[in-house]
């Protein structure tokens, strides 16, 4: 199952990126107290997914290189690395997090489908639980983005 291994690898990588990105954005915008604290909560969700993925990675391997994994390799997305400043910067950083979180979510969807196919109950359960939690991450990101956008785009200095 080389392609499943590739996707497990993709998951492992992107959940870790998401966790790191959430921490970077939260700490970078710490003056927005809610962003700081909720990003911490959301990062813990992703860190827990990474932890629970460890035995799965051991089971299927984690193939990231080779001719047949070219497409997923190109899918890899990294976090913002460095945060932007100010209200518009916050908006853009929330958008980056959103993009990263959707990659995580669709990868869980794909892996969940495969888990059904290989009748791997543990992986299926993890995929369903994680996809739900990624949905919560996305829901907060949308909520916060909607609240921040008018002030940032119309009034911010």
């Amino acid at each position, binding site marked *: 199952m080389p392609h499943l291994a590739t996707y497990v690898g993709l998951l492992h990588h992107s959940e870790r990126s998401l966790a790191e990105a959430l921490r970077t954005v939260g700490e970078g915008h710490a*003056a*927005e*107290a*809610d962003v700081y*604290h*909720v990003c911490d*909560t*959301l990062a*813990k969700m992703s860190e827990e997914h990474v932890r629970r993925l460890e035995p799965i990675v051991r089971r299927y391997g984690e193939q990231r290189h080779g001719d047949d994994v070219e497409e997923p390799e190109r899918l890899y997305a990294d976090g913002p690395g460095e945060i932007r400043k100010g*209200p518009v910067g916050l908006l853009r950083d929330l958008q980056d997090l959103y993009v990263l979180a959707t990659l995580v979510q669709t990868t869980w969807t794909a892996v969940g489908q495969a888990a059904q196919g290989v009748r791997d109950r543990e992986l299926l359960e993890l995929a369903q639980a994680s996809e739900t939690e990624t949905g*919560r*991450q*996305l*829901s*907060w*990101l*949308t*909520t916060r983005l*909607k*609240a921040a956008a*008018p*002030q940032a785009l*119309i*009034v*911010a*200095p």
Partner: protein
Amino acid sequence: MDRIADIWGPRTPHARGTVWPARVDRHLQEGVAEEDVERWVRSACVLCSNGCGCEIAVRDGRMVGVRGVATDVVNHGRLGPKGLYGSWDWANSPDRLTRPLVRENGRLVETDWDTAMARIAEVSRRLLDEKGPLSHGFYTTGQLFLEEYYTLAVIGKAGLGTPHMDGNTRLCTATSAAAFKESFGTDGQPGSYTDIEHCDAIFLFGHNMPETQTVLWARVLDRTRADDPPKVVCVDPRRTKVAEEAERTGGVHLAPRVGTNMALMNGLTRELFANGRVDTAWVERHTLGVDDLRATVEPYTPEETARICGVDAEDVRRAARIFGESERVLSTVLQGFYQSHQATAAAVAVHNLHLLRGMIGRPGAGVLQMNGQPTAQNTRECGADGDLPGFRNWSNPAHVRELAELWNVDEMTIPHWAPPTHAMQIFRYAEQGSIGLLWISATNPAVSMPESARVRRILGGEQCFVVVQDLFLTETARLADVVLPAAGWGEKSGCFTNVNRTVHLSEKAVEPPGEARSDLDIFLMYADAMDFRDRDGAPLIKWRTPEEAFDAWRECSRGRPCDYSGLSYDKLRGPTGIPWPCTDEHPEGVDRLYGDGVFNTDPELCETYGHDLLTGGTVTPTEYRAKGPAGRAFLKGAPYVPPHEEASEEYPLLFTTGRTVYHFHTRTKTGRSRNLNDAAPDVWVELSVPDARRLGIAEGDRVRVESPRGAMEARARVGQVMEGAVFAPFHYGHWDLDEVVPEDFSRQANELTMTIWDPVSKQPYFKTAACRVVRVADGDGPAPAPTTTASRPVDPSVPPTRGGPGASTVAEVVDGFVPSYPNDPALPSGDTGHIAEVSAPGRS
């Protein structure tokens, strides 16, 4: 009778299911006898959220006293110490604001109204031209009247079109409202105070009722001191009077570690499931989400709960058993939950307990999510806080359209693209300068908001023009660019609604001093200056008097859960306040909501589509509809997560703050009452015996309390707080009756608290900070803390707290008079509607 020493007054115990006897409390200014009073003017007390019916004594054009109204459904004639000593005294204080002030060359100087209002209108117009309505923010209070909130809401939402409106009610009542919306679909208190007469157990969650709502506690005592007392369960890190009553009645005192309420609630909920105490049939018919809730609470065994919360596992079992075995439980919730970690989730968990047992909507089986401020309920209803008027849903286009039609404005004018901006975010925008005009009415954020040093910087900075309207030159007003002198309680007319949905009319008793004007008149003056118009070019605000404003609000509320359509000023001049909904169908109002087990969760009716309790992420309309709630209540759970700041090596203790019995809000009124001020004249800090011993601190020693954000100094009370926790009363600012307070702000508990809020209700947390305590100097006597309450000392030699000269009051129990209310479940059916014929004491 000295009601400083005897806070709750004489007992009138009575059996379960019978009417709470009347007792009329009265206090007149020293030297004024009852026969000297020229007029008694109807009102209700605004010094806590209980909303006691009262009358104001007037003599020579001044307020000189107050008495309770025996026929009023809320208090049956009683008043508490704050109401007796603090409700009218401030009005005669020589330091009232009597003329507008404007800042000239850095100093506030007196001016006339035209100049002051012109300056506001000029800044307002310039900002509207340059940046649009999002440049305006309004931060209001829990002290205005319904008519004023509604007028302000229309100006803000339909005149300017800004979503940046909130009140200091965000600091007190936001979690109550949020929890109702999450569980039942809309705001609205389901229970009634009459539940006290019928319950067989009463749970107080983070609610120090003896100090925050003294008259309500008298009502509880009259049941617990009768022959068939309900069991009391107390959740509080301090050994309060509630905790003592819990012990007396065979209940439990649970003192969870600060910040761990959610773990405790999950533990109690799990016990109901584990012991088969769930009314499965009722839950099936009337709720959604039971399976998810069961799974969420499963890890919280009594032992695990005990480990997290620092309580005894057996006590968790006992408390849950009392809840599970009682037929009628009344739960009350206040700031111990609302201002603490995971606030909304913990408050919702109280609803869950009741829903699982099917204990809602019938006598004795109720939930009272309390308010801290008296008229907070009106900011929630009228939309002067972060809501739309009439409990309308900002994400339901039909609701926004209703408002647009009512106000005759374009729907697009009414901001509804996201939830209205909450107070903490408004201050953040003001800090960044994107809100350029911040209008603060009748509240004192420089003292009441968390991390006070930051709030002072925001208000004192150049980036934002600050307008303050108030009675006195408060700590906040001193930082303003324009200060407007306002009329207070007794100096203007209007209605307000208490926690319990009971509406009272408060009539003008005296003229305000100097050029002070009612808040309604000030808002109307601004509307005139700005010339706000509706779609047809007519003035947007179509009313000039309080009664006209009330009638406009009545139309706005029609058909919504908070329906006032059956109320009028005339009707409210009757013998008692009346609880909404009051309609043609229910002309005397409704005592208790959800008696039919049908909740306001229908997608077309509900006020919100809900949130994730852990993150505050919103549920989309589509997701909500897919649940098909159909009038069923939501059972919503959340796991416990550790608080945002935990004790560490550097800051080993947990800091918690709260209101105490002799002061209200930032002491603007109560600090000007000699008797209340003398009873607790200065701030103090409470430590447990083991912590005090470890730190070498004795009663009365001067200590410095430090958190990562700031410090305060106070004298230490070695008292009743749990080990590891430090308590300080909030809202001692740098103002004082005797003006002896140094200007270093070191009395303020909020120097230490964090800028952090609940993700759902956006209520800031005042009870989760880490701190350390350092001894500064020897004391020269005991701490200035009362001995009569949870602040009492361990040291028995501290002299008891008593009132001074002029503290004498009257409390009359009237033999043979049984109050009678149309909705009182204690009355045999049929025996209703005769209160107008009763000749009752305390009513002229």
